[in-house]
């Protein structure tokens, strides 16, 4: 593939290609709509480059295969959609607790339960609050275009390896299924020497390594968790990302991420045409969350509105950051319904007119 040329690719396939180019040659998955093209692409490509594609017996097994591959020191990933991510949560907790890097992809669909298969953002709480049991965080990237999805895959692997923690690409059925032009970055992939901690065989060159999350002494367990949280602070300080759109003079601020942010942007442009000073904060990382940017905007904005494909989940983070200074509203659809720019515009007009 000529990496200088723009190609039209489905989100799911672009994501898989980006992972391969980022040096991930081990993929373990299980079919589920609407992410199956990730697995299909991997199944086609990986055997040709000496990699491993394995269809696991379950999501539970798939994440544990990733656990094994990551423990062995290679870049590994799995991909699923909402119900499958619930099954993976056990493994995600273990990996976070064992300081293992990996990439998990969630191409969200309508939920709860088996739900539907249309686009959704209703796993926000799961991804940012409790991707598994216990005191832990994972990196959560929220792309809004196929190009950004590709770029974020590279970044996710690199930060996962740097901070030795799982990373997630948090997409949805729309981003997974749609095609847009992409360019693959011609980037040197940074190599990480993992021999000092990986369970790859000690070769008689060091003491045996143990990858483990069982710590029976409470004081020792606390020490390790606190240490890990210090690392999380470094991540927060250095890797929180968001886009600010027309924010400088904004009296009203929309907060939206992923597919929804594109719709919000169209609505904001239309509102600006009508003379409403509205801007957008688009978190690119959901953990860490750009609370600072939201808080700063709260100093001059009159009101905020979180727009999501959920019943209102990220709005919690907006409210925390706004800290009661100004009203925070919510608009969204759930169950697989994508909000329209027209609906969002209507809400902006209501907000600006004091009718909310």
């Amino acid at each position, binding site marked *: 593939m000529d990496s200088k040329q723009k190609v039209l690719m489905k989100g799911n396939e672009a994501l898989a290609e980006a992972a391969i180019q980022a040096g991930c040659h*081990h993929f373990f998955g299980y079919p589920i709509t609407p992410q199956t093209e990730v697995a299909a692409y991997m199944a086609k490509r990986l055997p040709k480059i000496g990699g491993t594609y394995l269809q696991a017996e379950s999501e539970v097994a798939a994440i544990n295969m990733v656990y094994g591959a990551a*423990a062995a020191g290679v870049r590994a990933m799995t991909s699923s959609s909402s119900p499958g991510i619930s099954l993976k949560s056990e*493994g995600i907790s273990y990996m976070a607790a064992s300081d293992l890097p990996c990439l998990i992809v969630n191409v969200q669909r309508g939920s709860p339960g088996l739900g539907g298969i249309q686009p959704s953002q209703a796993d926000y709480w799961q991804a940012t609050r409790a991707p598994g049991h216990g005191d832990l965080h994972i990196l959560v990237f929220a792309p809004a275009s196929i190009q950004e999805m590709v770029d974020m895959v590279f970044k996710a692997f690199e930060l996962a390896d740097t901070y030795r923690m799982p990373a997630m690409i948090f997409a949805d059925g729309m981003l997974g299924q749609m095609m847009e032009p992409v360019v693959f970055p011609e980037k040197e992939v940074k190599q990480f020497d993992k021999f000092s901690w990986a369970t790859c*065989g000690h070769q008689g060159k060091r003491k045996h390594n143990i990858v*483990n999350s069982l710590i029976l002494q409470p004081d020792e367990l606390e020490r390790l968790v606190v240490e890990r949280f210090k690392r999380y602070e470094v991540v927060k300080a250095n890797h929180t990302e968001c886009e600010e759109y027309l924010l400088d003079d904004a009296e009203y601020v929309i907060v939206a991420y992923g597919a929804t942010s594109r719709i919000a942007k169209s609505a904001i442009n239309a509102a600006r045409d009508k003379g409403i000073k509205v801007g957008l904060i688009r978190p690119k990382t959901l953990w860490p969350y750009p609370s600072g940017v939201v808080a700063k905007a709260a100093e001059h904005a009159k009101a905020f509105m979180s727009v999501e494909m959920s019943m209102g989940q990220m709005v919690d983070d907006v409210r925390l950051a706004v800290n009661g200074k100004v009203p925070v509203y919510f608009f969204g659809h759930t169950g697989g319904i994508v909000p329209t720019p027209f609906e969002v515009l209507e809400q902006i007009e209501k907000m600006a007119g004091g009718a909310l």
Partner: protein
Amino acid sequence: MAVVYERPKALLDVPTHYCPGCTHGIIHKLVAQVIDELGIEGKTIGIAPVGCAVMAYDYFACDMVEAAHGRAPAIATGIKRSLPDSVVFTYQGDGDLAAIGTAETVHSATRGENITIIFVNNGIYGMTGGQMAPTTLPGMVTQTTPYGRDVSIAGFPVRVCEMLSTLSGVAYAERVAVDAVPNILKAKAAIKKAFTCQIEKKGFSIVEVLSTCPTNWGMTPVEAMQWLRDNMMPYYPLGVYVDKTEKGVRP
């Protein structure tokens, strides 16, 4: 003076947490001896289960991973697929392997993963204090079968070697016991054969080791050995269930 017996190098010189009379120590030693004899410690990765052997990662000198309950074969798969020339074994109990991890066990077997499973079957959940296991015998009293395992309520025990022997990916499956020296020697030979089978990339290998749990069976170690012979062995016959170590499982 000639040394005729010593601790295998692959078994670290640290105190273990096992109960007095527990047979895990014997099985650990056999695995370590095999690792020593094959000279593979530097390229071996072991996976500890959840259960009594949960802390086996502190006892073996090779690299070790601690798995979630039942997931050891999936983790072993991930490691082996990443490092095909390594030697990967899981060390699992009956609850871990045949209850919560049945899917992982069956599917790693049917895929013919080049891994070795050491399956310790003592018919009871030891670490959590003696509850019914998938291999608890009919009529056997445990904390959760206080009137004896009633098969009309709790169903029947799983015979793991017999079940796995129906799968095409299994290159080697043998059931052994560690109740007495002759059987211990046979157990060691079986473990060595299983590891060799893996090194030669012949397919999935499992050694099921009938063992005792004096603490939760409520017996002395000697009584427990006798109980194993009288009750476990008739239900779980010793012997080789699959041996395709010559040709391997792949076409």
